[in-house]
């Protein structure tokens, strides 16, 4: 019996009711509890976590349709006492207990459903499990296999470039070829060059790529004796940039032309930074503007202001959503991987170019996997052979982890 009748007698002690007491009967109906509760060690974690799963209550979205919550209870023994540890909403079929105190100790769980009137069901069956830490994340085999494969390609082309000195072909990247033209134009016009690293931090790979490009640009500005201005969003990026530019000026034989104050901190407020850089563009009227790094909504504000002052603009970012803005407003745009290839492209170092070749070979592998997956998907959709199952297995293998 899932239904329990309870009788509550409420006697209203008002002057009127003194003459005739009113008796009210309320029927409390308990919801059905969740069933088939199972507990297991959370897979691929550092331990101290147990995952619970259950079948939803018959009154969750059906039957009485009164269940709004599931309350989870835990105990150190099967007999209890069970302590409340957490709640999940209706429709949910699982709960992760992340606060398991000790690994390799059995814990017991039960679950109760609850209505909006805070009426709880009977307890579910009791499930038990122990937590363990894992030595390998089995959901990440795909990353490991492809990581090793791609690393092998890089190592192969690196060794070819290093040992055999093979000259590798790299296609022209218009945005990088235009760097010299942009700095030269600024020099001819007697205007400074502005380099904006965006609002990324030093741990963003795009910011590091931007700093490698900065090194090459700084060398050019040092050779042409053109002023290089760089406002910064992050003080660590500023410090790294100062060192890089200083080194570039030294390598170009113009250490005395390096001005540390031209590479300065602005603010860590996104639109404050945009306003500050816009102000510098309007006041200094740079001949060339490099927008390289991580950008968000401020990308178009910067690029359009740069366009309005007549500067030649070369942008580059790995933020796909900002690329259309840069392509619309700038003269050249380095699209994602072109930006990461910039240091290799500009240095023309065969070892560095070897990694680009490895990247291209990896791309061929990815294209092959996509083509094979597409063919399997089509054949599976047409119910030909076991391709449908193979396709699903392939998709599952790539999406887990």
């Amino acid at each position, binding site marked *: 019996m899932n239904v329990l009748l309870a009788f509550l007698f409420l006697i209203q002690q008002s002057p009127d009711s003194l003459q005739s007491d009113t008796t009210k009967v309320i029927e409390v109906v308990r919801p059905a509890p969740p069933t088939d509760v199972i507990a297991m060690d959370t897979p691929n974690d550092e331990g101290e976590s147990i995952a619970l799963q259950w079948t939803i209550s018959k009154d969750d979205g059906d039957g009485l349709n009164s269940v709004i919550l599931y309350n989870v209870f835990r105990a150190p023994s099967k007999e209890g006492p069970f302590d409340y540890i957490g709640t999940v909403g209706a429709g949910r079929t699982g709960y992760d207990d992340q606060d398991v105190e000790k690994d390799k100790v059995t814990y017991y769980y039960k679950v109760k459903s609850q209505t909006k009137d805070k009426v709880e069901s009977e307890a579910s069956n009791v499930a038990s499990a122990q937590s363990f830490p894992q*030595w390998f994340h089995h959901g990440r085999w795909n990353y490991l296999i492809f990581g090793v494969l791609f690393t092998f390609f890089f190592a192969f082309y690196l060794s070819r470039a290093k040992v055999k000195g093979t000259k590798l072909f790299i296609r022209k990247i218009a945005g990088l070829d235009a760097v010299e033209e942009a700095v030269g134009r600024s020099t001819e016009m007697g205007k400074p060059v502005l380099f904006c690293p965006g609002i990324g931090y030093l741990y963003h790979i795009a910011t590091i790529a931007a700093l490698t490009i900065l090194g090459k640009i700084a060398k050019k500005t040092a050779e042409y004796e053109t002023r290089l201005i760089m406002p910064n969003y992050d003080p660590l990026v500023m410090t790294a940039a100062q060192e890089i530019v200083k080194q570039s000026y030294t390598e170009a034989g113009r250490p005395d032309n390096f001005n540390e104050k031209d590479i300065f901190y602005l603010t860590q407020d996104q*639109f404050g930074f945009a306003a500050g850089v816009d102000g510098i563009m309007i006041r200094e009227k740079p001949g060339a503007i490099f927008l390289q790094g991580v950008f968000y909504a401020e990308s178009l504000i910067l690029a359009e202001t740069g366009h309005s002052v007549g500067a030649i603009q070369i942008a580059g970012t790995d933020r796909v959503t900002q690329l259309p803005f840069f392509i619309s407003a700038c003269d050249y745009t380095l699209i994602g991987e072109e930006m990461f290839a910039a*240091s290799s492209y500009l240095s023309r170092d065969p070892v560095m170019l070897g990694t680009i070749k490895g990247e291209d070979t990896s791309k061929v592998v990815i294209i092959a996997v996509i083509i094979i997956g597409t063919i399997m998907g089509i054949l599976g959709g047409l119910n030909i052979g076991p391709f449908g199952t193979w396709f699903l297995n392939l998709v599952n293998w790539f999406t887990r982890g």
Partner: protein
Amino acid sequence: MRRQIPLLLTFLTGVAIIIAFFIPHRPFNEVQDILIDWAIIITGFALLLGVHSLLRKHITHIQRKDSGWGFSLILTFFFIGVFVAGIISAFQYKGYSLTPGSSLYFVYDYMVIPLSATMFALLAFFIASAAYRAFRARRLNATLLLVAAVIVMLGRVPIAENAFFKFLTRFSDWFMFIPQMAAKRGIWIGIALGAFAMSLRIILGIERTYLQ
């Protein structure tokens, strides 16, 4: 040695993070947390460098009376003002300086947010001017861009409820989910591989520009 030690540290840190990604067991899983804690501490101190850089630049402007030195004066004045407001609020609210009612909250609510919102609002005008230039149908590419943009805009914001606009809505959805998403994913794959190659170059010490 000046270069070898940073390169060795970079290599060891990179390898430790890769191992931690595949091995969730202690102590490997703690490496990332420890490094994040270090990064937070370093970032806190680095902010002092930023403040030093900002104030040095603007105080020099004021001292030399360079062109626009008045703006530097305003910046320095407000920097000190907000700093003092922050300290007073932190004392008043036991460290929670951005509690509603504090003077720093007032500055944030009535100055920082409206100014940021104003800058963000300017984006609408910049989008219009950039779109005008990009959509001028001078070349085949620009014409295709114009046609695609008009279809997507009318599909996303239909001006009437009839069969034609319903078709445009369906077509723009198809356009965004199939060809647009395919192009985007192509770029993402390139970016992921580029970032992978760059990371390997850094971990192996081939890419050293950032260590100058």
